[in-house]
Structure formats: structure tokens, C-alpha cells
């Protein structure tokens, strides 16, 4: 492949690739994203290579290793084209059967298919409920692309948007399109991308930077990682188009240190794009020059904050800077620097290809397009899901996520990462978009969505996030460093049953000062988990403080395990399993727990057979006197 010197040459290359490819030729795609990799996708891929070869099929079947499909918990995922047969939880041992049954006999291996709640098998990926209700504009190509092969991206229309922008549009035209599409930032605040671009474009100074924020520090979030690993060219294409609109010739991709595969695939992508003249000087013969460097971040949560990120690019310690001038005007080396999130950039080619109107038709009044969420917690199907803005929480959690497992009740969903908030059941029909989430005291953030069931203690949830932030605050400014520390101590006291009335006061006072006084947004928003749980679950805080009760039965210091004498069937299972020998009992005897010895590990509750249900959690009440030792079980 040589350098492409015009839009026409790119189109020619695309045609060549497409004619070379037979759409009916079977292709085995093996997800090799980080999740599936952990399940051994590499072994699966090797087994396919071997088996296909030993069956003499190497010329008749293509094999492709792709990025993440989103349904990671069911990995390793294998999809066989053109039929789009989707196999889940594939292990290397399954390969001979897949090869002989599916590739040779053209039949489906039933046992590897998705099975729905009614026991129905589903053959095609797109019919699985988890996928069926999504609209995967950004993420969907992951399953069709080998991220290390630029031809795969070009075959699907890749770089057509760049070529259109460079050959048919002015920089102002590109900017107007993005503004009209009302693309809002996917990395946190939802700031309109076009407006930010314009600020950087208009800021004085010849040298300007465009930057991809791939720091992704939210615990449990991995959408940016999956995009970069699985479809790096889509992000790169967006970035080059943005650079053209802004008038920038240098870019940075700031990638978290912990994402080596993303860095590897990006490096390959940059090299291949340079070879084709899609990056570097005189891109596609247009006279526009632009190149990109990868900067590997140190991996702290706060490094994703814009001023910290830019300080780190300058080669200094990545701490937030106390500046009242926007980084879009004065960022890296005090030059105008436009920073956008990975997913934001990946939206840009779509907008240029399909037009602002098309894009603005998807979503809600104020939030356009789709958003990728990382759906985790107490839901049946977890993974990465991409839905149009405005889909309700209920649809995401029940239709895509399959609802709450174990017959439990939904309690709340936490969105927006550590600075976000919880949303209670009464808002399940809330359309998910930037403004609606903010209205109920949470936020979009980068798209974390943690589902919580009735067994979740909201004070404990707040404590979890505050504890996370206590470790992630950079420690530079007093309100954040010391305020979060004190907040954590308050929450610890509450969960440990040592709180007093002044703690309720501190719960109100500390957030107020932190919100106003912290240097960067980490500290300013750090109390959101507390504020939002207080807003909807204040009664739980009060129960902890006033009644020493944890209504969800989570906080160890406030609960006791107790065996209900009339329910105990003397099966002796708990007695055998208690790690500290705290259970007294014997054959035919009612079992009792010695509260002095019990370490509250919860094993007895777990092992007591459900049909007996004799072990219960007590909180905020006196533990009843145990029945005298040696009392026999009354069998009716």
C-alpha cells in the first residue's frame, strides 16, 4: 500500500479492498478485548487457527481477532459470519466441535448459544436481548474490525469523513457541522464540543493542540479503553478532523499507563495511517499537516482532570493548576489546547459522514446521539452498552440488563462515577441524558452505571466512593485533602456505630466548603455521593446515627446474625461451616449463635438452606436470649 494523495485514491483503495473480500466467505471473529483475553481468548484463537488448518480450511475461512463486543462477562465471544452465529463462553476445548459442526456441516452448536430466561436458544448476536435494545453507532464496529489492520476500518467506510472534510469542507464548515449536531463531551461535564473547538480556534497563538483524554480513571469504567483497543482509527479520524477544524497541527493522546494494549494498537494505527498519508504532512494531498504523539499517563484518577493532564504532558507532575483561564485558551505550554474524551472524538466522523441533522435526530432535546455505559452491579447482564440518549433507566436496567438477579428488589442506580450520585426507584422512568441526570442530583460523567439492590446500604455506598476519592485526591489543596479525610472519618463513625449528632451537622457543613473551596473539580464534586444518598436516603443515615441500625443489614458493627429457634431444623450445616466455632448445637438440637464469638462473616446466613431460612440479620434491636442449650427441635 502506498501513500494516498487524494480523496479519489482513498476511494479506489476502498474498492480494491472490497473486491478482494468475498462477503459470503465464512469468517470466525474472536473477541480479543481485555475481558475475553482474561478468559483465554488467545488460546481460543490459536485453537481455531490449528483446527482450521488441520481440516484444510485455511483458504476457505478467515479468522479475525477483534476488540471488545461489550458482553465481556460471557467471554470468550465468538461470532461466525456471514450467518452471525454468536457463541458465548467459548473455551479452547469447544473449537474442534465448532469447526466440524458449524464450519463444515453448517450447523449450530446449541450448547454454546445464548439462552434466555425461558430457556429459548438464540443464534444471532443481534437478537440477544442484551444487544437487541442497544444502538451501537460508535461501538458496533468493534466486532467487525481487526484493530491492527487499517484495511478493515477502511472497508467499513473509514476515513471517508476525513476525506470529505478535507476535500469538500472548510474548517469553519466542519466546526459549524459539529456545533449544529450539538455534540456534547462524553468525558464528564457534557460541554458542547463545537463551542470548545471554536474557543481554541479563535484563541490567539499559532500553535494549538488537540488532545484525546484516555485517562479513564473511574473505577469500573472501560468504554474508552475498549474503543481505543478495538477501533483506534475511529478516534484518530475524529481527532484529525477536529484538528483541521481548529487549525491545529499537533495532537496528543493521553493514555492511562494501565492500558498497554490500547497503546500498542494505537501505535500500530498511527503507523498505518502515516504510511497511507492519512496522518503526517499533506494529508490526502490536501496540504493539511497534522501529527500525533502518545503520552502515557501515570494512572491517577486526578490526572484526567484537564489542567492536571496538560501539566503532565508538559513533563511535570500531573497536578491541577490554579488558573482562571480555560485550557482551551491557555493549556499545554500556555497554548490553546482543545481536550476531548475518547468517545467524543469517535462521534466526529459519524457527524461528518451523516450530517448534523441526522445526528441531532438521535437523542433528546439537549443531548444528541448515543452514549456508551458501563453497566455493572446487581443486574443479570453486565457489560458495555450503547444506547440513544433519552432511553429510560428502566429500559437500560431491565430490557438490556435483564433486571435484578436472585429475585431481589431494585433499590437505586449510581451514575457518573465517583463524583456522580444515586438515583432511587421513583426515577426509574427518567430518560437518561445530561440534563435529566443532573436534575435528580447525579450526572452523566463518563458513563458508569452501577445497579444496586435492596441489600445495599446507602451509607456504605457513600463511604465506598469517599474512600476511593480519599486515595485519589492529589493532596495539593487543603479542603480536598483534609475535607475528604474528615468526611471519611464521619462515614466510618456512622457505619461503625460510633457517630453522634455533630456528625449529621458535619455531613452538611463539609460538602458546602469543599464544593466552594477545592482547587479542582475532583474536590469540588467529591461530596456528591454523600449529598445524593442523603437526599434520597436520609432515613438510612438517621437510622444508623440515632438507632444504631443498618436497615440493609450491611454495616457489620450494627448487625447481628441470629438463628430463629422455630425455624432451625438442626441440619448442622451452619455449625460445620462457621469459621470461628461460634455456633452451638448438635443433632436434633436447636442451634444458637454465641454473639461474643461471632465475627459476623455471614457464612451461616449463606449456608443455611433457603427452605429453612433460619438465619436472619438483626439490626437496631436487641438480640433475643438464646434458647437454653440442649433444646430439641420440635418436629411436627
Amino acid at each position, binding site marked *: 500500500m502506498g501513500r494516498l494523495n487524494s480523496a479519489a485514491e482513498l476511494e479506489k483503495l476502498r474498492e480494491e479492498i472490497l473486491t478482494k473480500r468475498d462477503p459470503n466467505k465464512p469468517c470466525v471473529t474472536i473477541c480479543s478485548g481485555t475481558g475475553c483475553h482474561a478468559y483465554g481468548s488467545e488460546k481460543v484463537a490459536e485453537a481455531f487457527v490449528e483446527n482450521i488448518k488441520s481440516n484444510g480450511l485455511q483458504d476457505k475461512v478467515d479468522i479475525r481477532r477483534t476488540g471488545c463486543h461489550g458482553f465481556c462477562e460471557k467471554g470468550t465471544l465468538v461470532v461466525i459470519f456471514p450467518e452471525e452465529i454468536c457463541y458465548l463462553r467459548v473455551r479452547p476445548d469447544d473449537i474442534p466441535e465448532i469447526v466440524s459442526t458449524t464450519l463444515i456441516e453448517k450447523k449450530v452448536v446449541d450448547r454454546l448459544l445464548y439462552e434466555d430466561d425461558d430457556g429459548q436458544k438464540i443464534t444471532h448476536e443481534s437478537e440477544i436481548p442484551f444487544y437487541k435494545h442497544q444502538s451501537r453507532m460508535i461501538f458496533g464496529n468493534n466486532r467487525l474490525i481487526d484493530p491492527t489492520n487499517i484495511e478493515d476500518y477502511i472497508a467499513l467506510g473509514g476515513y471517508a469523513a476525513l476525506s470529505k472534510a478535507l476535500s469538500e469542507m472548510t474548517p469553519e464548515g466542519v466546526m459549524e457541522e459539529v456545533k449544529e449536531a450539538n455534540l456534547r463531551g462524553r468525558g464528564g461535564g457534557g460541554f458542547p464540543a463545537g463551542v470548545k473547538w471554536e474557543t481554541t480556534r479563535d484563541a490567539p497563538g499559532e500553535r494549538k493542540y488537540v488532545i484525546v483524554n484516555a485517562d479513564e480513571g473511574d473505577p469500573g469504567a472501560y468504554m474508552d479503553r475498549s474503543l481505543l483497543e478495538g477501533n483506534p482509527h475511529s478516534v484518530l479520524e475524529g481527532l484529525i478532523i477536529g484538528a483541521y477544524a481548529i487549525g491545529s497541527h499537533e495532537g496528543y493522546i493521553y493514555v492511562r499507563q494501565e492500558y498497554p494494549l490500547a497503546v500498542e494498537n494505537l501505535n500500530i494505527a498511527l503507523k498505518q495511517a502515516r504510511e497511507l498519508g492519512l496522518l503526517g504532512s499533506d494529508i490526502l494531498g490536501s496540504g493539511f499537516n497534522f501529527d500525533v504523539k502518545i503520552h502515557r499517563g501515570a494512572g491517577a484518577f486526578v490526572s484526567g482532570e484537564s489542567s492536571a493532564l496538560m501539566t503532565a504532558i508538559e513533563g511535570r507532575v500531573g497536578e491541577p493548576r490554579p488558573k482562571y483561564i480555560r485550557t482551551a485558551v491557555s493549556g499545554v505550554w500556555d497554548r490553546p489546547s482543545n481536550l476531548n474524551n475518547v468517545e467524543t472524538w469517535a462521534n466526529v466522523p459519524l457527524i461528518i459522514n451523516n450530517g448534523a441533522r441526522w445526528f441531532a435526530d438521535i437523542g433528546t432535546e439537549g443531548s444528541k446521539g448515543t452514549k456508551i455505559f458501563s453497566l455493572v452491579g446487581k443486574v443479570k447482564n453486565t457489560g458495555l452498552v450503547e444506547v440513544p440518549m433519552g432511553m429510560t433507566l428502566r429500559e437500560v436496567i431491565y430490557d438490556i440488563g435483564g433486571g435484578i438477579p436472585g429475585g431481589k428488589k431494585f433499590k437505586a442506580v449510581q451514575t457518573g462515577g465517583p463524583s456522580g450520585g444515586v438515583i432511587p426507584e421513583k426515577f426509574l422512568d427518567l430518560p437518561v441524558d445530561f440534563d435529566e441526570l443532573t436534575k435528580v442530583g447525579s450526572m452523566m460523567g463518563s458513563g458508569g452505571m452501577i445497579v444496586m439492590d435492596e441489600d445495599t446500604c446507602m451509607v456504605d455506598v457513600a463511604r465506598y466512593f469517599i474512600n476511593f476519592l480519599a486515595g485519589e485526591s492529589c*493532596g495539593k489543596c*487543603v479542603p480536598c485533602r483534609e475535607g475528604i479525610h474528615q468526611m471519611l472519618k464521619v462515614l466510618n463513625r456512622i457505619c461503625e456505630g460510633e457517630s453522634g449528632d455533630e456528625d449529621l451537622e458535619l455531613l452538611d457543613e463539609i460538602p458546602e466548603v469543599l464544593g466552594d473551596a477545592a482547587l479542582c473539580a475532583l474536590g469540588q464534586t467529591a461530596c456528591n455521593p454523600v449529598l445524593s444518598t442523603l437526599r434520597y436516603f436520609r432515613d438510612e443515615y438517621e437510622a444508623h446515627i440515632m438507632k444504631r441500625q443498618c436497615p440493609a443489614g450491611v454495616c457489620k458493627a450494627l448487625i447481628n446474625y441470629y438463628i430463629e429457634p422455630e425455624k432451625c431444623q438442626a441440619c448442622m450445616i451452619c455449625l460445620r461451616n462457621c469459621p470461628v466455632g461460634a455456633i452451638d448445637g448438635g443433632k436434633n438440637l436447636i442451634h444458637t449463635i454465641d454473639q461474643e464469638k461471632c465475627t459476623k462473616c455471614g457464612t451461616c446466613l449463606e449456608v443455611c438452606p433457603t427452605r429453612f431460612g433460619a438465619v436472619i440479620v438483626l439490626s437496631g434491636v436487641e438480640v433475643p436470649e438464646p434458647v437454653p442449650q440442649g433444646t430439641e427441635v420440635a418436629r411436627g
Partner: protein
Amino acid sequence: MKPILIVEDEAIMRESLQDWLTDGGYEVESASQGDEALKAIEEQDFGLLILDLRLPGTDGLEVLRKARERQPKLNGIIITAYPSVQTAVDAMKEGVIDYLPKPFDLNELEKLISQTLGPVQVEIRPKTVTCVIDDREVEVPQGTTILEAARNIGIDIPTLCHHEKLAPYGACRLCMVEIIRGQRSRLVTSCVYLVEDGLVVKTESEPVVKIRKMLLELMWARAPGVQPLVNYGMRYGISGLETQGNSVLGGASKTKFEVEPTFCILCGLCVRYCAEVKGKNAIGFIGRGTEREVVFFPEIASKECANCKECFAICPTGALPSHYALVETDASK
């Protein structure tokens, strides 16, 4: 106009040249070594290089030669404290615009630069701006912080991480003030925020006082009883500090937060002073969040600190001697 790159290993020379030219309206970058310069040249185009002839590693002429492989028409001016006919001839052969023996006349240098790069277009006449601080009107040059403007008229805004010789840092947040523009009010750090025309500033409004009080209470838990916290603590009436007149009473009431002393409020004055004023970096931060602490780096500190100790005097808590004692005991082992 493309920027100028100064390549000079002597810090004082480099910085004063950079300041002089920056004040003159040029965009200036600097490097202390040849390799660093070449890296900068990789990253951007320059209009002119000002090179010290003698540099550690690659010498000035060599840097120019290599730079021209990337940017063939790049201009260079050589400065040197060791002029000799031979080096001058070499330099001219290399096509430098001029060869200046140190010390040289800065005005002469600037003339040379403007001949090469053309006249500076930016306006450098200082403008002034006017604002109202606590109901008093103040006029100050553009680029003045609210803190400086307030101090000019004798309004005392409390600070713990500010120092005239150091770049604003914004860590203690004690200097926060309320600013009002039209209907909107905002809280900002006065040691960073630059005065704008028409700005209205309240330095002791209710939200400001509330923040300061809690910040002091938070710091008190780390450094109870240190003088600046006693002074400010009295001014804002923090819990745990009972006073009569100007003296602190013993057996103080309950502090707002449990005292867990470290005797360092992490204002960073020591770290920044050592880096920015002394250029030594003998002391620095390690750790994040509440784990963050100040440490002397023994390799550097054991050489530099004994004769300096200038940061000891600016530490608001007096924590440094005990930190430093560790370096000394280690060294004596």
C-alpha cells in the same frame, strides 16, 4: 512570529535573557543543554536560536548544525565567555548571524533579533484596570492579582501558601474572596485571580468567612498551635482555640476535628522555594491525598542544604528542622 530558543547552561544568564526578551514581546523558550534544545527543536519550529558556545555535552555550534538538519534556514546567534578568533571563524563558517562575546549589551542583542525576526507587533505598554475591593476603588496594572491589589491599599487577606518570589500555587485556599460581576457572585482564590475592570471584590463576606473558618479548623487538626494558625484562628474564631485578649488560654474547648498532627500543612512553600528560587530541588512531595508529605531528597539535600536553610525560615509551621534532622542523622551513619 516564530519563537526564540535560548540554549544556555548558566541558569541566571538563561533566565534573565528569557525575561528580558519576553518582556520585549517575544515568545521565548529555553534549554539548558544541547540535547534538551534538540528535543525542543524536534517539537516545534523556531525563528532564532541564541546559543552559548560552551555547553555540557553537545556544544552550541553542533546544536545549530543539527537543528539545521531539521530546519535548514534557522538563524543562530552565538554568545560566549571565551571568545577566540578560531571559534569566531568557525561560527561564521557555520553561518551564524553574529558572534557576541559576554558580557554583551542587551540592547545590541535585541537590535540583532529584530533585524532577524522583524519588529515585535504586540503592544507592550502596560494597561491599568480598576476594581472595587471592600467598597474602595483601586487602580492597578493589568496582570495584578486581587491579593496584590488588596495589599496595595492595606487590606489584609489571609494567606498561607503565597510568597512574592514564587508562582501562585492555590493550595491553602485561605485567600478566597467573593467576586461579583453583574448579578453573579463567585468565590475565587485571590492569589491567582487577576483583577479585571469593573470587578467588585468582597474579602470578608459571609461565605468567605465560613470557608476560612473551616479551612483553619482542618489545618489546626494537622498543626495545632502553630503561630499563623493561632493568629488567623483568633481572627476567625475557630473551635478549640479559646482566647482572652491576645493570649491563648490553655485547656481549650473541643476542636472541630480530631487532632492528628503532622505539623506540615503542605503549603509547598519549601518545595517551591527550593525549586523556583534556588533551582536545587532538594526537597519535594511524595504520596497522594493524606499520604502526601514533604521529604528532603538525601542525595541532594546532604550537599545543598547545610549552607542554605532558606526554606526553614519561610515554613509557616516550623516543621523543616525536624525533617532535615533525618538527613543529617542518615549522613552521619
